[in-house]
Every structure is written in structure tokens, then in C-alpha cells.
């Protein structure tokens, strides 16, 4: 039976998680299939390709990271949201390097998961690698070389702090998506203390100065009052 509801494959070895998340995803407009480990996930993907995959990292038989690696090696670029361990910044960085489209730390807000799944589906370009896996991100005169961490504007290399570089990378890999300060703090700094959101504003100001981006008439980064930031320029991977 075909349907226009996107099919999400939910992979977690904890039955209570899949049992509770699956109906929620269904109510939110998705078709849902579940798998209990990486191997079962690969088998299901082979039999019935989903539109998006939500996958835990730590699982028996075949873990999420290895399953993702095999998927990407086979040229399958179905959007993947990895469910990572809290606080492990190295794990988060690795998740993106290995081709995940996004990640979420457990325990997460289930509605946040739905928002992320919708966002990766919106960003997905069928059959092509996601921006998070691109070696180079480009928008107009601004380019970002992922491996060397070099940012150039009009061919001139910008001098940015490592945090500002990571912040720009996160924004450019999530274009046109409203991102809260808390999420940026969690993704870029690895902590989410509410009083620390000011840190995000400080780095954002540094980034805007370097990009000559006027906050009142932004070309790149828009401030959404009381909610967060949005990278508004169209980004292509290379």
C-alpha cells in the first residue's frame, strides 16, 4: 500500500521507547516501522526503503554508528537522525562526520524529535549526500571548507575563533531552520545551562561582524526575536 505519509524507520533496542514513540510519530503524520538493532534496520531498509531513519547509537548485534556507515558506504543517503549519548561532544562530531543528518541527545523532548525529523525530510535532496556530509558548504561569496575549517568571504580567509567556526558550520548545515539558543549551546558547546545562552549571542555577534552581516537587514543570519536564529541564505554542498 502506498501513501503520501513519509515512512520513518525507528530503530532502538529498548522496546518501551519504540512502543511509545511509534504512535506519537503516527499521530504526527508519519508511517512508522520499527527495528530493534542495526542489522534488523539494514534488512528492513533493503526490503522497504524509508524516507527517514531515527536510530539509537548503542545497540546489540550491530550498533547505530556501524549501521549508518554501511548505509552511506552503499550510497544510501536516506536522512538519519542519530540518538546519541548526552554530553559526548566527540560522539556528536563523529555522528555528523559519518553522515548523520542530525542527532538528538537522550533523554529528549519527543516533540523535538518530530521537529527534527520534519526538518531533515525538508532538507533532504533525494539520492544526494546531506549538507552535513558535504566537504564544502557554499552560499554566494561565503565558503566553508570542512576538513581544513577555513571560512572564506569573497576569497578572503576570515579569522574566527574555533567556536564561531563550529557555530557557522551548524548554521550552514541547517539552513532555513529556526534554531533556539539552547539547541545551539547544546550542539556547539556541549552544555545547555539556561544562563549560558548569552554565550551564543556573543559568538553570533563575532560571526556577524566577520561576515559584515547587518542584523537589521541580514544576508546570512536572521534573529527571530525571543526564539533563536535562522540561516537564511541558500546553502549548497560541494
Amino acid at each position, binding site marked *: 500500500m502506498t501513501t503520501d505519509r513519509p515512512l520513518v524507520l525507528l530503530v532502538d533496542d529498548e522496546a518501551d*521507547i519504540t512502543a*511509545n514513540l511509534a504512535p*506519537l510519530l503516527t499521530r504526527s503524520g508519519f508511517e512508522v516501522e520499527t527495528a530493534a538493532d542495526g542489522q534488523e534496520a539494514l534488512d528492513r531498509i533493503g526490503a522497504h526503503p524509508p524516507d527517514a531513519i531515527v536510530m539509537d547509537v548503542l545497540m546489540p548485534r550491530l550498533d547505530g554508528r556501524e549501521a549508518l556507515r554501511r548505509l552511506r558506504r552503499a550510497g544510501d543517503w536516506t536522512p538519519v537522525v542519530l540518538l546519541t*549519548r548526552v*554530553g*559526548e561532544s566527540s560522539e556528536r562530531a563523529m555522528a555528523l562526520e559519518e553522515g548523520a543528518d542530525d542527532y538528538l541527545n537522550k*533523554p529528549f*523532548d519527543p516533540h523535538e524529535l518530530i521537529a527534527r525529523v520534519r526538518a531533515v525530510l525538508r532538507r533532504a535532496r533525494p539520492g544526494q549526500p546531506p549538507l552535513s556530509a558535504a566537504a564544502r558548504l557554499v552560499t554566494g561569496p561565503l565558503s566553508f571548507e570542512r576538513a581544513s575549517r577555513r571560512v572564506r568571504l569573497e576569497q578572503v580567509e576570515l579569522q574566527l*575563533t574555533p567556536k564561531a567556526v563550529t557555530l557557522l558550520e551548524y548554521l550552514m548545515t541547517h539552513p532555513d531552520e529556526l534554531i533556539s539558543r539552547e539547541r545551539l549551546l547544546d550542539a556547539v558547546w556541549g552544555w545547555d545551562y539556561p544562563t*549560558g545562552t548569552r554565550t551564543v549571542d556573543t559568538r553570533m555577534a563575532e560571526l556577524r561582524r566577520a561576515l559584515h552581516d547587518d542584523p537589521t537587514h541580514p544576508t546570512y543570519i536572521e534573529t527571530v526575536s525571543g526564539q533563536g536564529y535562522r540561516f537564511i541564505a541558500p546553502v549548497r554542498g560541494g
Partner: protein
Amino acid sequence: MNRRDLALLIGLALTPLVIALLWGALAVAGFLPNPGLYMRGEASAFAFVAGVGLSLWLVSLVWLAWVGARRAHRAEAAAHKAGAADRRRFLERLDHELKNPLTAIRAGLANLPEPAQGPALVSVESQVRRISRLTTDLRKLAELESRPLEFGAVQIDELLETVVGAVRERPEFAERTVVVSVPQAPWPVPAVHGDFDLLLLATLNLLDNALKFTAPGARIEIRAREDGGAVIIEVADTGPGIPVDEQPHLWEELYRGAGARSIPGSGLGLALCRAIVDRHGGKLSVLSQVGKGTVFTLRLPATASP
């Protein structure tokens, strides 16, 4: 025992040898009025040998004491490190064991049909969020001890300006008098070699506490100054103060004093501040009097003075 104390003790221990040598030299050179009286052959030899013997004995005593102290210090450091590693492992396991049940509970709650939603459910949801946040914070606190820092020159005026800017919009801020002083004369307070974001977080936590624990009308002062090779940042308030018996426990994870229990918070803020200050090679201390107020003092090694 530090190296200076050790050098001083060895110097003292060698004094008998120096005196014996000096005495002998003076006698041989004929500076003593009646060398025969002070320096007969046997006596000089005896004084020399006795001096050498006494010095050697004293030197070995000092050396043994120093070796013992160093060994004790090393054992203490190793025990501390092992304790910290144990704690980190425990937090990792705790986090690992709690994250799946919490994820399942949150998904289950979000999944309940509308009629079941009500005040009781809202309360359950908020408590689950609280536990989620707590495990996350504990895990991150453990990570803070090992994560790489982004060191650079941190300008104190910029740091404190950002800190105050972060809370300026809060209603508590308007209800209290907040004064910031960073001396610029005769020269500005020197910069600190540190991670701006983490120092911001630590200072912000202290100011956040001052705002939370004082009553409207209180005065809060954030002061910076130079002291020798260090920069001191103080966050002082005219709040209720902290009883003396609670003060040593303030830095412990999840500790909440009697006066703090009714005020929302994780009980991790000061533990976090201390972890940050430790990673900068600094010191965090508190001085408080019940009924008068509290001052938290952050001492950080300064970069070279201007």
C-alpha cells in the same frame, strides 16, 4: 614541603660543617689569638669529623622527611584522581541507565490521549523534565573535568559586561542594586589566560545565585582587582548569608543548604563554578555572615601585567 623550605632546612643542617671548616681555616690562617688554645691537631680533626657527621645525619633526616612528604602527597593525588575517575564512571553509568527509561517515559507522556492531559500530568511531565535535566547536568559536569578548553586572553571588563548584560532583562535585576567596578587606573585590571565561555558561565552562575538568594532591595557588587600575579573577581551581596557549617559543603554536587531548598536550582551551579576555576588553575572561596551577606571570590592567574 616545597623546594624553598627544603633548601632552607638543608642549609641549616649543613651549618655545623660550615662552622667547623671556618673554625679550622681561621686557626690555620692565624686569625685566632691563640691557635694552640682553640685548634690543637686532635681538636680540629674532632671538630671537623663531628661537624661532617652531624651535618650528614641532619641532611639524611631532612631528606627522609622530604621523601616521605612527597610520597604522601603523591599517594593523596593518586587517591584523588582515582576517586574522580570512579565518580566519572559512576556518573556515566547512571546517565546510561537513566537515559532510556526517561526517554520512554517522556515519549509515553507525550503519547497520552488529550483527555488524560491535566494538572497531574503537567506536574509529572515537569518532574520528568527535571530528572532529565539533572542527569544531563551531572554528565556534563563530569565531562567538564576533561574536555579541551579554548584558551585565550580574557578581558575582565568585557567578561563582566557580558555577565551583567545576560541578566539585565530579568525582573530580579531591576529590583536590586547591581554595581560593577573594574578599575582602569593606574592601569586596567590585567587579562586572564582562560576560556571566555567557561569563565562567563562561572561568573554568571555566581551572579545568578546572588540574584536568586537575595530579597528585592538588596545590593549586589561585582568587583574585579589585581592582586600580585592574580586577578580577583568578587561577587558580593547583602543577602541572608550562609551558615558556617554549610560553607564547606557548598561545592559538593547536589548539595543544597537549608536556605536554598525552597529556591529552584539543580544544586550543581557551585560545583560547576569550582570545576571551571580548577581547570584554570585558580581558586574559588566564600566568605559569609548570616544576616549580613556573602562574597564569592574567584582568584585567577593573570597574564603579564600591562
